Every structure is written in structure tokens, then in C-alpha cells.
């Protein structure tokens, strides 16, 4: 199963910056990207190993495929690469329906890892009222699992609070990651563990920002489980996850065989992976500091997952 992520957001929000950053720092992942316009991404020529009409291969193993021939064709081109990309990302155009695009992530062979919507924190409220694109922007917010609230340096402390309240109304299901220069760690963006030593964040020139803006940091929680549990217990655990958990994943032995667990924001997926016999038996969660409370997760796991399944 290849994880599949949609990156949406209106014009000027910072989508391209995020995508360029992920492409240039994939942390050992072979990313496959479906993009609208190679020119806009402006990939460093030194990074390009091979290019033709519709695809560009990078020296770090990532592949970009243009959507100019249509979505179906581009997706199959990408999935036919040998070896297959580790993760498929889709750059949605500013007016694309991200929720519809996300449905390809439920196709056999793919698994939807999440919908990331990048917003311009300064202008998003105005955009939502725009006569032409207001509804499109609101649909983006409703579909998002994770909102990258970009350009935080352009708004005041009070505006940040107001934006938080506004978003909790327009996008109650999503997690908000405040940022500037679209800085989103790959662990958060794609739910993959960074294989690099250093956490990858673009270097920011804080001095140039009018308002001081502290980058969010995240913490990790790991739960080892050398035994099987019931699906019912897992579901109970997931239903009680605190909202500070941004992502959680794992492959767990259960009374119904191996289950793959994926959480991004409010989206929980439990899927049977009958082709797998035994797996790592651990759950890994990441959450946003300072709200992330590893101890409460320990308690939750103890309540729901500590008992061994009676086969």
C-alpha cells in the first residue's frame, strides 16, 4: 500500500513552498509528486537527473509527474515507476476539489494518508467571503485533515487567536499547524519518520519578521505491544484519542489478523492487512507541543490496550 497525500490550498498560500521543501528534503523517502506546473515549482536544475515531457526525476529518487495529460494518466505513470514511489503526493490547483482528489487514496494499492490544506493566515478570512472562490475555500477547510496556517509572521497575536477560533468553526475536524514559510516537518506532513539525524526545518530569518513567531515543536509517543488485542479495544482507544495527537500509526496483531492503524487529525483508519503475518507491534504518535501529554496517552493505552486477547 502506497500512502497518498493531497496538498491543497488557494493561490498564494504557500503550497509550492511546502512542496519544494519536501522535494528537496525528502529524508530518504522516494516521493512521487503529481504537480500542475513544473515551472512554478522551480526545481533546482542540479537536482534533476532525468526529464522528459511529463516527468522529472530527481537525484534524490523523487519523481514529479505533470498533470497536463489528466489525472488518471499521471497517477498511473507514477505508480508504474519501478520501484514504486514510497509516498504519492498530489498538488491540487487552487480551485481543485481536494476531497474528490483524496478519493484516489482509497483505491486498491493506495492508502489515504491525509489532506493538507495550506492557508494564508493573513487573507484566509477574506478569501472565504469572496464571491467567486469563497465556497471553494470553505470546502478546502471542511475537507482538511491538517491545516498549515502559513504566514503567521504577518499577523498579530490577537489575529492569531481570532484565526484559531474562526478555524475551529470552519474546520472543526482539522488540526492546525501554525507556520511561516510553509515550514512543516515531513513527519507531520506525511506521517513518515525522518531518517535524517536533524529535524528538517527551513532556516528562518526571525529578525526580519515584524512579529516574533515561535515555531511549533512536536513530541513523539511510542507504545510497545508484544501481544494481540481485539479490534474492539483498538477502536475504543482511537475513539478516545486527545485532539493534541496529530498523527498516529502502527501495525498491530488483533483477533482479526494484522490491522493497520492510521490517524491524521480526526481521520481514523483501521484496515485489515491480511497479506502481513506479524509486524512491529508498536503504536507511534506525534503531537503538538505544549499540549501533547504523553502520560495521558500512556493511561489511555493502559485502559484499552493492556489486556491480551483471549483467542
Amino acid at each position: 500500500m502506497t500512502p497518498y497525500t493531497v496538498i491543497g490550498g488557494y493561490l498564494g498560500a504557500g503550497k509550492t513552498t511546502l512542496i519544494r521543501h519536501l522535494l528537496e528534503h525528502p529524508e530518504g523517502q522516494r516521493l512521487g509528486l503529481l504537480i500542475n506546473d513544473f515551472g512554478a515549482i522551480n526545481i533546482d536544475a542540479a537536482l534533476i537527473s532525468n526529464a522528459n515531457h511529463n516527468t522529472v526525476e530527481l537525484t534524490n529518487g523523487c519523481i514529479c509527474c505533470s498533470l497536463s495529460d489528466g489525472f488518471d494518466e499521471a497517477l498511473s505513470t507514477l505508480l508504474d515507476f519501478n520501484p514504486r514511489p514510497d509516498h504519492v503526493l498530489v498538488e491540487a490547483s487552487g480551485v481543485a476539489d481536494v476531497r474528490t482528489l483524496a478519493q484516489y487514496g482509497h483505491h486498491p494499492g493506495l492508502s489515504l494518508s491525509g489532506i493538507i490544506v495550506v492557508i494564508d493566515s493573513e487573507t484566509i478570512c477574506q478569501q472565504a467571503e469572496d464571491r467567486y472562490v469563497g465556497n471553494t475555500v470553505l470546502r478546502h477547510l471542511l475537507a482538511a485533515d491538517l491545516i498549515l496556517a502559513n504566514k503567521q509572521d504577518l499577523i498579530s497575536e490577537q489575529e492569531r487567536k481570532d484565526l484559531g477560533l474562526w478555524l475551529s468553526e470552519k474546520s472543526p475536524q482539522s488540526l492546525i499547524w501554525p507556520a511561516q514559510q510553509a515550514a512543516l516537518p515531513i513527519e507531520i506532513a506525511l506521517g513518515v519518520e525522518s531518517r535524517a539525524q536533524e529535524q528538517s526545518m527551513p532556516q528562518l530569518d526571525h529578525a526580519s519578521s515584524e512579529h516574533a513567531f515561535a515555531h511549533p515543536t512536536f513530541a513523539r509517543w511510542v507504545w510497545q505491544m508484544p501481544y494481540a488485542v481485539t479490534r474492539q479495544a483498538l477502536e475504543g482507544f482511537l475513539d478516545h484519542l486527545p485532539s493534541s495527537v496529530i498523527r498516529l500509526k502502527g501495525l498491530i496483531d488483533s483477533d482479526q489478523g494484522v490491522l493497520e492503524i492510521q490517524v491524521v487529525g480526526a481521520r481514523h483508519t483501521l484496515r485489515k492487512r491480511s497479506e502481513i503475518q506479524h509486524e512491529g507491534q508498536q503504536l507511534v504518535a506525534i503531537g503538538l507541543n505544549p499540549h501533547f501529554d504523553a502520560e495521558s496517552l500512556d493511561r489511555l493505552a493502559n485502559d484499552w490496550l493492556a489486556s491480551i486477547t483471549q483467542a
Partner: protein
Amino acid sequence: MITVFEAKHIITMNPGNPFATHIAVRDGIILGVGPLEELEGWGPYELDRTFADQVLVPGFVEAHAHVMAGGMLLLPFMGFFDRMRGDGTLAPGIKSYEALIDALRNEESKLTDPNEPLVAVGFDPIYFADQPRLSRHHLDQVSTTRPIFIYHASGHLATVNTAMLDAHHVTRDLEVEGLGRDAEGELDGELREPPAMSLCRSGYSTVQRANNTEEAMWEFARQATNCGITTCTDLGGLSLLSDKFLEPWLSVTKSDHYPLRVAQYNIGAIPGSQADCEAAAARLIEIRRQAHEKLRFPGVKFILDGSIQGFSALLNSPGYFRGDDHGQLLVVPEQLKSMLMPFHSKGVNIHMHCNGNATQELAIQTLDALLRESPWFDHRHTITHAQLTTQAQLRKMAKLGICANFFSNHLWYWGDQHYEITVGPERAHQLEPCASAVREGVPFSVHSDAGVTPLGSLHTLWCAVNRLTPSGRTLGESEKITAYQGLKAVTIDAAYQMHLDHEIGSLEAGKKADIAVLAENPLTVDPHHIRDIQVLGTVLAGQKFPAAGVDWS
């Protein structure tokens, strides 16, 4: 060699010489139109009396159609209204589920390979709103073993049978949102939007491949001939994307027997995506070098929104009458000007699909901005569909020189639905405001958007003149136009908005000898009868092309 065609009556659509009885042609070009004695001075001629009892009008110009009209009739057709194939056979309208199942059984029995999917097109659930939704259980009555894929008229949906779901391992545990389900969560066989439709790839790809074939292009032209059309747009071609879409067009149109001039407007960008329009505009100029008499590239097409009956057109306040508003632009408004500019600045005519009047507002504003920056007095850029154009928009279009291409066939095919469901009575009466366009001085054409509705210029003209719906309503007495105004809209004014009015669209000296041959005079028959006038065929560059079933030998 000069041929003089004699007719009972010739309507030239040249206001300087409106009516005649004879037309002299040499090398595909008109030498003159008039009484025989005025034409004899051109030299020795052969008098052709084939049309002596017929009425000749300029060959019809269809300014918004798609080669899909050909491709879809090569597949079994399950639409609600009758369609005529190029060979003259009828694909009868399907009025009930029983008729649908019978028709599909009949098609199924023609297939020899038991694994070949049965793919049919044209079904429209809007006409079955009083019945349970079409499901796999209906289609399972046709076959439980052969995969079946019914592609809906909207292009957004399909219904498949259980064998099709099984063939592609589409099961109830798949979470794809477009998978229709019954109350118990079981799949019902409906597939909404491409992510769901493409799960049943064997059916979906058959539909997608159907249009870019030489067979589809021939079928398209034969249907056009049957309707008297001599120049037809393929308004939404893909030739700017790749040579593979251009090559079959070059090949078919070079045949002497190909009975149609094709005006291909290729899309500048796939709807909903961004594209490098500088490169696309440069390619358009480049492929124009391969243009010839029967294949032209007059301009570029952009698709700006969805459809009214799909609730995906972007409407001005007060929005839709009933149903949920899914109005959405397919371009980023701030990017539209920079997408159009590479074409506009090269003198390329632009046609923009706008079904909703909010979308149209954006198109007009953007053209206004474009013209301030890069003046072009004779651009003839066109809003196509333009169904809900307001009076204020018409005034602005007149000032800016923007043309309209109204989807008059909607009055008949969806007029009742617009009145009752989509936009409500007041705006339904003002759909396709042809008479207001006349009053405000906006040049306009009327179109079929074939294969969305069937090709047929007499039908689109009939709709604009009579404004009738299947239930018997007249939509908008004040927007009716005369038969003469309607005839202009499907000949010279359609040619005008493609910058081809100096070559086609009227019968006058120096222009192409492109003629539609009619059994009766559309200007003098009862206006209700216009769509029933028999079309006997066409003359294209002086060469006769009889309609299916007509013998001119």
C-alpha cells in the same frame, strides 16, 4: 469548370443580395448568386438541377460541438431523446427502465467475447426522478456475468452491474466516497466522479478512448452532413496537449470524401489545473501551419465552470432555486488574465465556457482588464453557453465587443427542469436571452454542445424561435427571436465569432460554396415546424454530400 445550381429558392444571408434562384460555383468558390441570366456571363457552365425543388441556405455553422457527438454514437446509446446516427439509423430514446434493460439485452446479445464489457452512454437520471435510482440490480437483469458500464449524459456518473464491480474487485469495504450505497451500506453500482468511475477501468477507459479515433471523426462529420452543417467546431479539442490528439484529425480531414470543415478550438488548460499558457499559445500558432481547408484552428477554449443541471455552475445571487449549490470555478480568478493574455496578445480568438452568470461576470471583467492592457478592437472573444446572461452583462458585452453563444437547446432538453428545479420560473424565462442580445447589439450564435444534445442547427434555431419545453411551456415570450434572426445565428453570426465570416456563413461571390439543402423554407414555414424540415444534404466547396438515405446520383 463552372457549375450553376438551380434552386426553388436561395436564402443567401447576405443582406445586400438576400434572395436568389441560382448560384454559380468554380473550384469550390462562389462566382455569383442571382438569376441565371446574371450568372451566364462567367462563361460556359453546367446547369445542375438536383436542387430545383429545394431551398438552399448557407451551410450551417455549429459554433459549439464536440467530436464526442461522433464517438458516443459508436457506443450503444441510452439517452432519453432519440438520436440519429451518421448512417441514418435511429438510436431511439429510452423512456423507462424496462426499455433500458431491453435495449441493453439486445446490445449484450451482439457481443461475442463473453469477457468484453458492455459499455453504453447517454443515460440521464434527471428524467427518471420519480423512480428509484438506477442501480446494479437493474443492470444485473441484463447479465450477471458480463461486466456492464452505463456512462451518464452528465459525464460525472456511471452505473455498473455486479459483474463489473466484481471484475475490478470493487467491494463494500473500499472507502472511496463516490461509491453509491444502499441503506445497508452495500454498493448499489452507482459511481460518482472520476475517482470512483476509474475503479471500473475497463468501462471508463472505453468511454475515454471513444472520441479520439478516426471512426468517431467520420461519424461526427456524417451526422453534421445529415443536419446541413458544413463547418463544425470541435470546441474543446486536446491538440495543444499532444500530437497524438492532432494526428487523427489531420489524417481524416485530408480525405476528399470528408464532408466537413472542422474548426478546432483546443483547450488552453485542463479544467481545474494550471498550465503553461505561454507554451500553449505558442503551440497553437505552430499547429496553425498544418491547418488546411477542412481543418482550422481559429482560437482557444477555456472551461470556467460546471453545468446548471449539475448545480456546478457558479450563479449570481440568489443562486439555485432548489437543490444544493455545488457551484465552482475551474480556474483561479486571479490567474485567468495571465492565462488568456498569451493568446489574446497573439491575436487568438478566445471562447470561454460559462454556464453560471457569476462565472460570466468573471469572464467579462477579465476581458475588460485584458483589453485595457492590450487593446484589440476586433477580438470577437465569445462567452459560450452564456445561459443566464443578465441584461447588465449584455450591455457590458456590447460595449466590449464580446460575443455570446447561447445554448438554446437547453430550453427544450432541460427547460422544464430549469423552471421547476434549478433556477425557478423567472430566470428560466430569461434563459438564452437571444432577443435581448439583439436589442443590446451583442452578436450571438446558438448551439447544441453536441454530444450533450444532438447536432442539428434547425433544432437549435427552432428552440431559439419557439422556446418550447417538452411539457408544453413557453419559456420567455420576450426572448423569442424571428426565424431570420435564428438563421443568422446558425450561419453568418456563428462564422463571425470565429473570424470566418469572410469565408463562410453566407452565399456571396468569393466565399466558399458551402450550402445546406432543405426541403422547405425555414423563413416561411410555421415556426413550430422548423425543426422538422427535411435536410437533404450539403454542398461543401461545390461538392455534393447527400444526407443518409438521400440519392442525388
